[in-house]
């Protein structure tokens, strides 16, 4: 028997082809290996290739077992061409997007990709609803099995929430929509009511499979995704992006239940737990509960939303690029702390040049990354990698925090709240309890900031600005780094 015959031997409704089942299992295992590879940058590329192989296996298996056939059982060539064309169109768009995207725009791209997974899940669930026999989830009379109805309801709800939530996240991250929270009056009641309606309708769907039930669930789910994300501020985006990542996984898992497909279930569970763990890590790094992030209303981009009122003017020490260059060239150990401001100013390349210059002068340069620096998990690491900073010079909070005490200079660029000692000392501060980078322990702190006006997303003043050993370098992060590079190369050591 040839492969085709073996694969199509048992594709009747509901029957599971053992070869196809094994192929899907292999695909699922390859996806596990894809994530396993990410435990180290050295193995990550091969992990990514495992993922690609797994996906190829899943797609080819499905194509072979579900060839489009006409009423007479003959291969429907036109449909097959349409399917291959659809894959081709997606491939071109996807590859062009992946090539062109700037690394600083990664969070938007990921949000856009999440929205596509969500919408695809909705489309598949709708297709399964309209043609249940093709999916083997209905009896001869067209009555969809009860358990399949629940799975379908869940799939479409999660898919729709992922889609509309990701669209809002995309608009906020891309700057098409203000990053500050948009608060509707009575939003908690609206949200809870909508959620309750979705759950209730899904339960009712098991009794009545009329179209209005199905489409109302869909519509309400689109609405709740939108309502959930608009009150969440820009700085909470790392949690939101991780959460939507998780949802896109659960959507795939729900569809996997409907189709009884192991590859989809394994993947869905992997992606779902991955996103959930990332959300947890992000929340822990801000000392905020997941519920309070979802409840929203915190972390607008506008500093004006902060404490307000007349603040006392405290003295601070301004510095120039030349001062900074001099101080750092005399130092033994310099720790660089990048934040979202570095990404906004696209300062990563200038910063790496600065680091290279310093290394040439024999200075020991390290980078310290706070887990929530930037707009998505690992955002700073990718930008530094893009600028050719070797990954073994980049350290996580817990690995480097003890070293600030031995550092001659802490160079903070575009980060603020993640260095604020108020998180440790001031119980009334909104960021109290958040783990911070102890830059205040360094002998000298150089703080690059656009102006003294803005006070970070939390709207909290930072005591580090006013310490004796702090020098404020006011200006655009990229320009400041460029000027320091010039000053360093001018000194001619």
């Amino acid at each position, binding site marked *: 028997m040839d492969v085709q015959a073996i694969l199509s031997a048992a594709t009747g409704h509901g029957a599971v082809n053992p070869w196809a089942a094994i192929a899907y299992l292999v695909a699922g295992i390859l996806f596990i290996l894809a994530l396993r590879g990410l435990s180290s940058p050295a193995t990550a590329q091969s992990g990514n290739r495992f993922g690609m192989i797994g996906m190829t296996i899943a797609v080819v298996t499905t194509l072979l077992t579900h060839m489009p056939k006409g009423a007479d059982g003959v291969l429907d060539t036109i449909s097959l061409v349409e399917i291959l064309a659809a894959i081709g169109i997606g491939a071109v768009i996807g590859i062009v997007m992946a090539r062109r995207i700037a690394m600083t725009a990664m969070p938007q*791209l990921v949000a856009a990709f999440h929205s596509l997974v969500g919408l*695809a899940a909705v489309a598949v669930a709708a297709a399964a609803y309209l043609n249940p026999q093709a999916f083997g989830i209905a009896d001869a009379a067209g009555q969809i099995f009860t358990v399949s109805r629940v799975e379908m309801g869940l799939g479409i709800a999660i898919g729709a929430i992922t889609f509309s939530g990701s669209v809002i996240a995309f608009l906020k991250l891309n700057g098409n929509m203000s990053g500050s929270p948009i608060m509707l009056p009575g939003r908690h009641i609206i949200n809870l009511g909508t959620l309750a309606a979705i759950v209730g309708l899904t339960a009712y769907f098991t009794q009545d499979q009329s179209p209005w039930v199905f489409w109302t669930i869909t519509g309400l789910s689109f609405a709740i995704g939108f309502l959930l994300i608009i009150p969440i501020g820009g700085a909470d985006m790392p949690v939101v992006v991780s959460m939507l990542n998780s949802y896109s996984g659960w959507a*795939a898992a729900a569809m996997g239940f409907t189709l009884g497909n192991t590859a989809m279930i394994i993947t869905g569970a992997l992606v779902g737990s991955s996103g959930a763990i990332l959300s947890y890590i992000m929340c822990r790094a801000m000392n905020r509960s997941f519920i309070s992030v979802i409840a929203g209303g915190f972390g607008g981009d506008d500093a004006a939303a902060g404490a307000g009122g007349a603040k006392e003017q405290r003295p601070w020490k301004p510095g120039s690029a030349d001062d900074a260059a001099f101080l750092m060239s005399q130092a033994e150990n310099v720790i660089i702390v990048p934040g979202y401001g570095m990404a906004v100013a696209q300062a990563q390349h200038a910063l790496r040049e600065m680091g290279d210059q310093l290394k040439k002068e024999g200075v020991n340069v390290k980078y310290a990354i706070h887990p929530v620096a930037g707009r998505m998990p690992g955002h700073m690491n990718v930008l530094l990698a893009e600028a050719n900073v070797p990954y073994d010079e980049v350290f996580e909070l817990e690995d480097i925090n003890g070293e600030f005490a031995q550092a001659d200079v802490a160079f903070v660029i575009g980060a603020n709240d993640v260095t604020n000692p108020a998180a440790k000392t001031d119980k009334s501060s909104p960021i109290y309890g958040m783990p911070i980078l102890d830059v205040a322990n360094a002998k000298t702190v150089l703080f690059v900031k656009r102006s003294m006006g803005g006070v970070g997303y939390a709207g909290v003043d930072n005591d580090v600005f006013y310490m004796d050993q702090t020098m404020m370098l006011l200006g655009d992060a990229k320009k400041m780094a460029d000027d320091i590079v010039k000053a360093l190369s001018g000194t001619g050591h």
Partner: protein
Amino acid sequence: MDFISIFSIFVLACFVGYFVVWSVTPALHTPLMSVTNAISSVIIVGALIASAAAGSATSKWLGLAAVVMASINIFGGFAVTSRMLAMYKKKER
């Protein structure tokens, strides 16, 4: 497959996911998101089934639309992950 066996696979896969994801180094959290994005587009399996099935034209076109969306994600997700991973380099000694 019956519901219980599928559910068992799901629960076990959640545990595997839990342990595998905790072992991912924080430096690679962004590539983790983009690769999970790519693999969650395995939903293309459902899309392919819908677009190959006879019986409902709407269902077929929804399937084809989902195939396009999922393959944008698959190709885009793997390509951008690989682009990012290529940037992570060790110190030259």
